[in-house]
């Protein structure tokens, strides 16, 4: 490896790598290649009227599939309507979640609000997220008790509507030296992030969009809109109870995992053969189940494989929501589950039905079988057992466990050591065409776990002296570079920044995005050589670290 790179002229950093395709690229992708910032751009560029129109006109992919597989329209209708919440349901738990919410009144509760915001529960947090209805009713707060935040929500609602109604404009953000408040109005909801982190407005809007999509994922957009059309003053917490946890987790997840920053999906590194076996086990078991749209296997927030119905691909943000669902639902571990799931990018108007289960007690890979058929539990359960059996017989479970446990012998476990480039401290690489991501040091689940345990009371701003950066700290440092690279008005193709604590290179080409942290005050030619070697290694290992095929049923 070392000798070849001497012979070959050093790839100048301005050219694409020598091969036809950049590392990780393939001609057919399971995922929609995306730029997480494009979404922001379109979000931010919509005028008031456009915003209202865009919510109204949505096609249903699910009905499209249903009609393709020969459901007659009458059945679709019944299916759809029975997914809806029936009004008579309201009686049953009206009292359960019956909030002792006093009719919100911004002015009267002004003082209480100020006091409550200064309590230890809420003060000094690095990032707040508030979600409220456009009528100003609290729906979600990352910290504290929403009921006590009615006053604050009233103020937010007033700010948003003053800008809209009096100025015919849209409120975007407010900043102080150390704090940013970012506003996003989506459908009947207002989402606000108040952050003291180094995330850009773009990145915060993206996170709010995810939070909104998380809500859509449990309710569907159609239902969300209808609820507020019928009752503007509805207390959405009734329907979201149990889903707050999903939003809690998602917010932490987004702060830690660069997959969100880059709009890409992380794959579990596996030997090519093992991944092939897993994929074909799923294909051969499921190819007769005609309602099945996606079969997804994942482990530790990493994708193992995705088999899909022809014509349909998944958006990384939908996969992230699935990761989040699996990650935050302990109950999937205790039983096979059957649950409605709305994937907002795939079809925000309806539910897919998901069979969710862990492959086996000795392998923490989770299989999701997503169908348009609302009562396919048993055939899917059967399919799952067959798949699990096949995987066990072909030793795939061992391969998965090896990767999950980060077996030292695998080259992907500690790539920097394996390549032998000690001057690189950390890197992350995104293949744009397949929307997949690889980092030198995967965010360890334990760190997320620890954080989750204490986050309701934690999340405080801490002035800590960092001795050794963790993978999460590296990702934090990349945020700024990421937003410069993706800045809509003045984008950059390459950033090389060197100071006394480290040297960071951010580089985007047509095919990939690369972020590398080197030792401080790094020489440029040395950096170029190291990056060159890194790219060659990624190319060499691409079959292992990326999913290079786009299998269908």
């Amino acid at each position, binding site marked *: 490896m070392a000798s070849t790179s001497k012979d070959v002229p050093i790839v100048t950093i301005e050219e694409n790598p020598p091969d036809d395709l950049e590392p990780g690229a393939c001609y057919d992708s399971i995922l929609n290649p995306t730029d997480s910032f494009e979404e922001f751009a379109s979000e931010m560029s919509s005028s008031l009227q456009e915003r209202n129109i865009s919510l109204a006109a949505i096609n249903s992919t699910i009905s499209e599939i249903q009609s393709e597989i020969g459901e007659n329209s009458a059945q679709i209708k019944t299916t759809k309507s029975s997914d809806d919440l029936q009004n008579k349901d309201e009686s049953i738990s009206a*009292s359960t979640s019956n909030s002792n919410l006093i009719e919100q009144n911004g002015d009267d509760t002004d003082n209480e609000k100020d006091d409550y915001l200064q309590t230890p529960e809420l003060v000094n947090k690095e990032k707040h997220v508030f979600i409220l209805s456009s009528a100003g009713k609290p729906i979600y707060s990352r910290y504290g008790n929403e009921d006590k935040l009615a006053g604050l929500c009233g103020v937010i609602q007033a700010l948003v509507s003053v800008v809209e109604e009096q100025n015919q404009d849209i409120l975007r953000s407010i900043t102080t030296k150390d704090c940013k408040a970012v506003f996003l109005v989506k459908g009947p909801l207002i989402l606000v992030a108040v952050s003291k982190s180094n995330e850009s407005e773009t990145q915060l809007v993206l996170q709010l969009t995810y939070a909104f999509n998380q809500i859509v994922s449990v309710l569907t957009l159609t239902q969300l809109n209808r609820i507020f059309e019928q009752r503007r003053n509805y207390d959405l917490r009734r*329907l979201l109870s149990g889903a707050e946890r999903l939003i809690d987790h998602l917010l932490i997840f987004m702060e830690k995992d660069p997959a969100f920053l880059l709009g890409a999906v992380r794959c579990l590194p596996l030997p090519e053969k093992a991944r092939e076996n897993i994929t074909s086990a799923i294909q051969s078991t499921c190819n007769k189940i005609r309602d099945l749209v996606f079969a997804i296997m994942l482990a530790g927030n990493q994708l193992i494989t995705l088999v899909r119905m022809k014509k349909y691909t998944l958006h990384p943000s939908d996969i992230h929501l699935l990761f989040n669902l699996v990650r935050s639902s302990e109950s999937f571990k*205790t039983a096979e589950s059957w649950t409605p799931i709305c994937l907002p990018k795939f079809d925000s108007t309806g539910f897919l039905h998901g069979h969710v289960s862990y492959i086996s007690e000795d392998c923490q890979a989770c299989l999701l079988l997503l169908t348009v058929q609302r*009562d*396919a539990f048993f*055939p899917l359960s059967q399919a799952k057992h067959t798949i699990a059996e096949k995987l066990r017989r072909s030793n795939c479970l061992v391969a998965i466990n090896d990767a999950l446990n980060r077996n030292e012998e695998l080259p992907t476990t500690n790539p920097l050591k394996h390549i032998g480039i000690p001057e690189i401290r950390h890197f992350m690489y995104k293949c744009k065409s397949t929307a997949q991501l690889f980092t030198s040091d995967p965010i360890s689940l334990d760190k997320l776990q620890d954080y989750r345990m204490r986050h309701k009371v934690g999340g405080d701003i801490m002035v800590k002296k960092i001795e050794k950066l963790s993978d999460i700290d590296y990702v934090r440092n990349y945020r700024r570079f990421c937003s410069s690279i993706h800045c809509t008005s003045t984008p950059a193709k390459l950033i090389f920044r060197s100071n006394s604590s480290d040297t960071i290179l951010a580089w985007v080409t047509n095919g990939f995005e690369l972020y590398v942290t080197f030792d401080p005050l790094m020489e440029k030619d040395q950096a170029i050589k190291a990056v060159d070697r890194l790219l060659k290694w990624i190319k060499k290992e691409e079959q292992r670290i990326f999913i290079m095929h786009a299998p269908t049923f």
Partner: protein
Amino acid sequence: MATDDSMSDDVFEDDTLRAPAPAAHRSTPSPTGYRDYYPPAVPSSRLQDDDDIIIHKTILLGDSGVGKTSLLVQFETGKFQAGNFSATVGIGFTNKVVTVDGIKVKLQIWDTAGQERFRSVTHAYYRDAHALLLLYDVTNKISFDNIRAWLGEIREYAQDDVVIMLLGNKSDSGLERAVRREEGQRLAREYQVSFMETSAKTGLNVEAAFAHVARSLVAKANPVDPSRLAVRAQPTQEQRSSCPPCS
């Protein structure tokens, strides 16, 4: 003091129930009504073992947070996962074989999410259910008050002869208790359903509750002696006297 609850006075006497052998029930139609679905030609090994046993579909119901999943986990593993509050998403499915009076009964247990938004999903499963375990939390009065609404729903969606059992969970809670045992008993009597107080934490009455359901199912499938069954259908009345003064 709250340890009074852990006394086994709620446990049924084994000899009071002795159901006859189950009848072959192989021809049960697809329980979920999935179109074109036939049992697999080569069933997986797991199903194969229990092939000769009748399957009874049992659903756990009740408001969110009353401890349905904890009860099930305790029943399956004998363990309680402390502080691990994680709401069920949709419906969870497990099989469990219980032996009552030497008869193997396979319970196909559906653990449902208590949240309102999953209601429409869970309704679809009521229809085929043979037994319903309806839970409330003795420390949460609202969950108890909602039982009437739950029973109303059951009447609407479930089969008429479904076995219903009311469970007051978290009976280990001592001072935090908000619903007295007598209130539970009274409600159960009113609706003619069985009743027990359980604790997924200590394991109190967990086995017993499922065993009782299994017995009732067996008895229902073989109505040899309707008079005996009638007595056993309301076990709570027999235990009233031994209720500890916990509330």
